[in-house]
């Protein structure tokens, strides 16, 4: 049993094979893509492996503490696609092999021309919250 984050972002990953920006797809292709994501989430709930899936707005801002009694400082947004985090899925699976299998499947979501995106997903294991009871 292990939880993994499948993170869809564009920081340092090689370019996906089917590299057409989403706003250049046909509306039908966009719908198919979204449907694929939803279907996969439903299927993983059925296999008892789904934990969470979220999409993020493309633009956010930077925030930091600015000292006692002062409001936080904000900056941005800096809408640079190379830093975009599009969303994530969290799965709870038997082992890493299964996590890789599912990440591969998620990466096959259809894009332009209905062809698989082959986009790179980052797979990160969760740290467990509790230490084992047998130290």
């Amino acid at each position, binding site marked *: 049993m292990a939880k993994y984050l499948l993170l869809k972002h564009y920081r340092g990953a090689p370019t996906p094979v089917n590299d057409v920006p989403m706003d250049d797809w046909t509306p039908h292709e966009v719908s198919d893509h979204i449907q694929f994501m939803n279907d996969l989430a439903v299927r*993983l709930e059925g*296999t*008892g492996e789904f*934990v969470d899936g979220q999409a993020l707005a493309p633009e956010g801002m930077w925030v930091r503490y600015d000292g006692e009694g002062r409001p936080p400082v904000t900056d941005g947004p800096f809408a640079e696609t190379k830093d975009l985090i599009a969303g994530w899925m969290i799965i709870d699976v*038997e082992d890493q092999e299964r996590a890789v299998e599912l990440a591969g499947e998620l990466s096959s979501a259809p894009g332009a021309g209905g062809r698989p995106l082959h986009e790179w997903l980052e797979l990160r294991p969760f*740290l467990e919250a509790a*230490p*084992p*009871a047998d130290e």
Partner: protein
Amino acid sequence: MPEVNAVLVRRGADFAAAEDAVQDALLAALAAWPADPPKDPKGWLVTAAWRRFLDAARSDAARKARELRLYDEPLPGLAVDLDDTLELYLRCAHPSLTPTSAVALTLRAVGGLTTRQIAEAYLVPEATMAQRISRAKGTVSGVSLDEPGSLETVLRVLYLVFNEGYSGDIDLSSEAIRLARRLHTVTDHEESAGLLALMLLHHARRPARTRPDGSLVPLTAQDRSLWDTDLVADGVTILQGALARERLGEYQVQAAIAALHCDARSTAETDWVQVVEWYDELVVLTDSPVHRLNRVVAVGAADGARAGLAALEPLDPELPRYAAVAAHLHENDGDRPRAAELYAEAARRATNVPERDHLTREAARLRRTL
């Protein structure tokens, strides 16, 4: 009697069940004490209340198990047959299930936890857990009766549950102990006894293992007066019964190692030579690289850090906790710069948060002295 109540809760009873048990014990005291006043009234009450709690927990679990039978067959009379109980354990941890599914099904059908409780304990949505359990049921209901399952997988599943510790309201370690105790009563097998003893001996040390803020306390620094001596005594008795049968298994050996720790007043007084001997047995029985690594720690304590480092040499550096063990040995060998580096590496490779934080603090502690 809030102290008596607290003892029961500390041993793993939930609050309401502990209160009920203490009330029953007080009633019994009213009847028994006038004729035969005990020397230690509190001790008497703790013992009486704990017995009542265990009886209640067992009959409650048995009732739940009856209600949650996998098959819609009529109830076999009033009492659950011992063979039926064992059969349920074997089905729920059947080798045809993945460990994840077996854990979920065992907690639901044998342990009687609700799907929501199991989902909360494992931090997944209830719908996901419901599906996991229902698929597992589907798998084992297709298993024919001539594939009877195996006690080995049952024990492994219970140990997995035990090791999950607790997150949220459900104390999975206590739940695993309850399940192992019941299994022990229906199996008459030395490894069932060994597993139960192992769990009790680890559980006895739990109050000393973490600080109130959740940070880990290593064995050397634990306040041993916090160890639960009743649980230790219980574990040791059960272990002795198992060892007397002279059919050694991995759980009995691990319990024997835990018992040696529980028997010592400090790490300095621990019989490390005997600990190493038990690890030798364990490595023969399991051939597990993780046990080989644990053996190295014991060698380092028995024969000195140099001997520990020599024993570490042939092991695979990719093993979980390898860097942490190496750090500990190098520190004891006086090489603090190397130890600090290794603690930092061990922290990066830790798989749980309290361990990572502990190792980070160890690295920081050493670096301040450099």
